[in-house]
């Protein structure tokens, strides 16, 4: 499986400059003014780049039709699925460290309003990216990359049109008599515990997604 993970990074090697350049670009552009953009600079940059990695990874397999080769090798379909998930997790940790370090560097530049990356921001990058990947990858493993791309349209819709809906759901969730005590007890905890719980939920979602992916990939046909 290590070999499959290495392959994920090797085939995307030529995009590494794009990822790095894009990180710098986004951090600078989003932190040029003291408005709202700077608040979410790390989350926007991190999630975008991780999501690009997921998409490129699937698009490369599709473009080269290389799943026919992978599935002809002595390796189980489960390992092919797991290696994709593990590489996304490894890449997301790596890119979070990179943009954290870049942010650290940029705080020294006086014309930028960027602050140092916080633990909350790290958690929000990882959880958002993992949840997005957890939805995208099972669709890819079931239908291939072209149909999974349709998912991007849904993401676009959710990101740009669904924020109001999301706000309402959050409000309902926070004012609900059943969830209120849970929220109250959570708010008494430190940020590390809350962050840990959120991260744990994201890990559970990733695990479920990987389980669904192995099931659908097992039955996939490569015509």
């Amino acid at each position, binding site marked *: 499986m290590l*070999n499959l993970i*290495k*392959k994920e990074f*090797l*085939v995307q090697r*030529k995009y590494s400059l794009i990822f790095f350049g894009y990180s710098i670009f986004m951090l600078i552009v989003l932190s040029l003014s003291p408005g709202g953009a700077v608040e979410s600079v790390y989350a926007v940059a991190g999630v975008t780049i991780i999501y690009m990695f997921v998409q490129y990874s699937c698009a*490369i397999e599709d473009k*080269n*039709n*290389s799943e*026919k*080769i992978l*599935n*002809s*090798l*002595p*390796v*189980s379909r489960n390992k092919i699925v797991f290696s994709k998930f593990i590489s996304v997790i490894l890449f997301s940790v790596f890119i979070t460290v990179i943009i954290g370090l870049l942010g650290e560097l940029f705080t020294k530049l006086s014309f930028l309003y960027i602050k140092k990356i916080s633990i909350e921001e790290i958690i929000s990058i990882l959880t958002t990216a993992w949840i997005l990947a957890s939805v995208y990858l099972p669709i890819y493993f079931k239908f291939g990359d072209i149909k999974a791309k349709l998912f991007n349209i849904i993401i676009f819709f959710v990101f740009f049109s669904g924020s109001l809906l999301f706000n309402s759901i959050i409000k309902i969730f926070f004012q609900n008599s059943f969830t209120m005590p849970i929220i109250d007890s959570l708010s008494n905890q430190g940020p590390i515990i809350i962050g840990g719980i959120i991260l744990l939920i994201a890990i559970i979602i990733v695990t479920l997604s990987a389980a669904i992916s192995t099931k659908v990939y097992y*039955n996939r*046909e*490569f*015509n």
Partner: protein
Amino acid sequence: MDHILELNNVSKKYKEFQLNNISFNLEKGYIMGLIGPNGAGKSTTIKLIMNLIKKDSGEIKIFGKDYKKDEIAVKERIGFVYDENYFYEDLNLLEMKNIIAPFYKNWDEEAFQKHIKVFNLPLKRKIKELSRGMKMKYSLALALSHKADLIIMDEPTSGLDPIIRNELLGILYDVIQDEEKGILFSTHNTTDLDKIADYITFINNGEMVFSESKDEIMNKYKIIKGGKEILTDDIRKSLIGIKEHNYGFEALTTNSVLLKREFKDEIIIENATLGDIMIYIVRGNK
């Protein structure tokens, strides 16, 4: 007999195409040609064997084992060459080899380097910069470098020039000399198989026409030429793919001995090539 590959009544149904009850065996030390026109079901058969698609019914055994239950162990011993390049085209040959090699317990680096040298392949060149012939040789180099006992090739010679094709056939002939390996080779170009195949499985429109030794097929099928006056209804029934023209007819037959005895000098019996057999059978008696 040691069957390294066995298919028993394997079927697969699609919306517009159906592969019906395909059965054949391959023993080690032999080359089997899988022939048929484009769209006959050759690639579908190979994809079924490689478990890239799921069969609806039937049984596939490789090295005596169930191809699905023992999939990993079975695939350790299969070398595959496909009709198209499915490698990551932005990688160079060395990088791609470094991805493939660790999957095989029996990877033989020395054999790989030897094949690369013999095939004259540039290891540092990107896959997308290779010619079709080079890509095919590269696939073959990988297939021959992990001590595979069964080599499965789907249309490996399509699109190759005659010189490279001949070279490839020579390599395959060398591969089976130790009598421990078997080769399944699909092609719609039957001249490839006239030279090297021991057995032929012919699939037409998803149905199996025959699976026999090439010598038996060549003895059995003959081309008959004669005047139209002998074409009675009974005679027509014993002919395949009758082609009538102004001066007479041509057809394929499996009854050449009887027909020669009956019509003597009124007919000419000629040997058929695999290509002839395929053409006449596909044409049928329309």
